[in-house]
């Protein structure tokens, strides 16, 4: 063989080998685009863990058909039902969520079946949520397949729900009006409680805001930390940790976070509540049911939300304020509900509470902010 042919052979062989190496041991970026795994291409489901991991990878790649086909109990439901279980039956946070990561934890295994816990961390526009599923994995021939625990949609019988809740409309000066240029007095709001705490991630300022007025208000709160010499240290807003629309006499908790600031640096705090007159309605009413405080370990508040109105609430944000025995504010926690609130259909919520604060808590109050798609100006 002459040198030219040898060189050609070496380059061709090197290309094949390098492509094989890059495929069998892909670089991090390639793994990311392959769905965080190898998409079952090179990895048969020869163990229960691999079966669940392959399913997770297919879900991450939105390869619904492949994911459905890999299930051992697919005869029990259709592919659209499987898809709706993961992405929601109505428009909700799940609908456009992307699977950020997943974790597989074995619970029990025998020669023919196994139980695995799969923690799916979904990324949504308002943050991440975790969906934990306990899966049964069964051996079928030389491979394992997942028995998917489908959560079926609950149907409400046809009915008429009368709507007679209060509603406030605002007549503006004209079509050319701009937001913030109202020529009416802003609704009267007041901070009725404020409590800064030092946490590992920085200072957290919590409190409650009351709408003292007889008209609805769109509210937010801004806090500025001042050093002992009076100079500003940092300024942050409540962002989404507040219920922005407050009906007359309603109270909302708020949380303002200051990462990388220590409370010992802070001399005082300047609070700036802001309110604007807006149109509002008491509808939809969300009832909080079966609230239960679960002490440490794993301290949390659990309960259910029930939509009392006739319209679907696409996204709900639960905010809970926790008090000690003296009625002093201890903590404010929140959770976005990943499933839509169908009329008359309870949906569970779960708010985690820091372990070190849980023992002080004796009471709590919960408010719910809601978003329904297609709302007008």
């Amino acid at each position, binding site marked *: 063989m002459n040198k*030219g*042919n*040898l*060189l*050609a052979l070496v*380059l*061709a062989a090197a*290309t094949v080998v*390098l*492509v094989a*190496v*890059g*495929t069998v*041991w*892909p*670089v991090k*970026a*390639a793994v*990311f*685009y*392959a769905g965080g795994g*190898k*998409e079952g*291409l090179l990895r048969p489901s020869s163990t229960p863990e691999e079966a669940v991991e392959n399913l997770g990878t297919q879900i991450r790649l939105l390869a619904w058909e492949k994911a459905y086909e890999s299930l051992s109990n697919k005869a029990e439901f259709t592919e659209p039902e499987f898809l709706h279980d993961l992405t929601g039956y109505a428009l909700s*946070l799940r609908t*456009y969520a*992307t699977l*950020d990561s997943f974790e597989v934890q074995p619970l029990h295994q025998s020669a023919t079946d196994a139980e695995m816990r799969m923690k799916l961390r979904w*990324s*949504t*526009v*308002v943050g*991440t949520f975790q969906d934990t599923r306990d899966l049964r994995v069964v051996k079928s021939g030389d491979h394992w397949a997942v028995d998917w625990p489908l959560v079926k949609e609950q149907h409400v019988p046809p009915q008429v729900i009368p709507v007679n809740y209060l509603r406030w409309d605002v007549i503006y000066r004209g079509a*050319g009006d*701009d*937001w*913030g240029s109202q020529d009416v007095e802003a609704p009267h709001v007041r901070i009725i409680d404020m409590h800064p705490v030092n946490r590992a991630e920085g200072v957290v300022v919590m409190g409650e805001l009351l709408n003292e007025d007889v008209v609805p208000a*769109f509210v*937010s709160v*801004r806090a500025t930390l001042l050093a002992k010499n009076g100079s500003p240290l940092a*300024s*942050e*807003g*409540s*962002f*989404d940790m*507040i219920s*922005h629309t407050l009906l007359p006499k309603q109270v909302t908790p708020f949380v303002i976070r200051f990462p990388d600031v220590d409370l010992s640096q802070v001399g005082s705090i300047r609070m700036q509540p*802001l309110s*604007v007159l807006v149109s509002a309605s008491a509808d939809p009413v969300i009832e909080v049911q079966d609230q239960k405080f679960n002490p440490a370990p794993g301290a949390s508040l659990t309960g259910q939300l029930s939509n009392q109105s006739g319209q679907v609430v*696409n*996204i709900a*944000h639960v905010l809970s304020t926790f008090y000690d025995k003296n009625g002093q504010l201890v903590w404010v926690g929140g959770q*976005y509900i990943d499933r839509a609130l169908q009329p008359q259909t309870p949906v569970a919520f779960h708010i985690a509470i820091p372990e070190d604060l849980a023992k002080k808590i004796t009471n709590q109050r919960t408010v719910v*902010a809601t*978003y329904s*798609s297609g*709302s*007008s*100006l």
Partner: protein
Amino acid sequence: MRKFESVATASRPIPLSFILLAAVGVHLPLLLMQLPLKSYDTNFHIFFASHYVHHWFNPWNAKWFAGFSQTTYPPLPQQWVAIVSWVLGLNMAYMAVQFAAILLLVVGVYRFSMLWVSPRAASFAALASVLLSSECFLVYSAGQLSTTAAAPIYLNALPYFYDWIRYGKWRSFLKAVVLFTAAAAAHHATLIFGSMLFALPVIVLALMDRKDDENSSASALVMRTVMIVLLVGAAIAVVLLPFWIGLIRYPITQTPIPHPSRANYILSPQWGVNYFIVPYGALILALPFIILRGAKVVRLRPLLLGFWVTFMIGLGGTTPVARVLLGRAFEVLTFERFSYWATLLALPILGLLVAELVDRFRMRAIVPLTLLASLSCALAVAWSTFRPADAANFKVDSVAQWLNRDGHDNYRYITLGFGNKLSRLAIMTDASSVDGESNSSRMLPELTRYGGAALTSAKYFAKPGLDSLRAMLAHSDRYGLKWVIVRDPYYEPLLYFAGWRKVDELDDKTITVWGKDGVPPATPMNASQMPPHWQGVMWGTLPFGSSLLAILVVLIPEKRRRGWQDEDPSTTPEDLNSGRMIS
């Protein structure tokens, strides 16, 4: 014997004027239709150009990122667009500059190929460049004006580079230095990575071709190479001084942004189609020949190795080569440009294949080759329709008018769901945004910390993109960010829960404007990053001046073209001539 004569008769190169005419015929109609406006980056280049139109000597642009310096991106093509826009307007000026780059590529490929193969093969290589799918992909789908402008200038510089290091011709030295400098002023990635991949094979070729009686000892060649590298380096350092100062003061430390060109094209076949099948097209069929012929002919081996390394890097995450060779730069670079360079390096050998096939089979070769090349080109041109940068084409005039009236531009804004229309809107409005499309120009921590690209496309970057968007919205007061203009209802829940309210609806309610109350008016920011006036003068003078100088210097006539003709018997055209092989 008769066969050899017929081959000799047919071995005339295709006239360059005919090839240029073919380029005009293929690309001029496409550019007149303004097809690149649908691509990913075209609006970004036009936005930069629009700034140069109004502020030639002031690279500080307040319209993106709450203020950023355009010295973060070499300016030459955009400055040419700005100049030409005085006559044609921005859109057509872009098309004109892109068209000039396409014509330059034809000449560049021809001249570069002449170093390696016969004039006839070189002419086929140049003709192939007209229909080159990687070029079409970058022009019509990616919109990479800078890459497609810089590469042809490098290709045109390389024959002068060869002439200088081999023969020590000062005229060539001057032309090479000026052209290399102009190419660097057009694109930084091509300068830093591409120039090595193109220049190294030429240096090796000059060493291989040298003859002792030509005053070209190996040491003389090395000295000349070092000399020109030093001088070009110094010239580039001066011409792009504001760029280097910015890079040193603000090195790129932001969290890498995912790009699918780094995928493994086998594990992710959809990206394999996008970044391998489309850019290479029918050239894939020629890859075995390129390897075989490149290895067999000694003079072609440096070119083959240069091609192979570039090809492997261009495969992104399909092999570990790019990650190993580029290190952290692997997480920053995108790899479609490497595939483009690989195809350019392959063209001389491809020209050889085409010449042989045409000489041997005549019309039976010409017809299928033309069909294959045309189909490859058509696929790459059509790719921006199959896989558009934006799902919907829409106008942003109403949004620009809204921002420009009633003092709305006293505040900053961001768009959500606007894709590459973000740049188009920025051209039309006086308002300033905290978002933008130039990833290397971003300094705001909310943008650099998370690994998402433009906020307007945050959802496509999943958690990192959405984290970045939430961080920016949380700090809206800091930046005077009052307006969020939404064309994708996906984002509405975040705005609703974060304290924004719908304040207006535009374009039949397909676009909504959200406002936040209590946000203070925008104030000038990032003053420490603002380049001083002298840098603005340099930026407005030297890069563009380098291109003018290049045009003038290239017009100095050459005494005689040197290249493959003067080589030893092992490199004469007979060796590369299909007639000899046939006979």
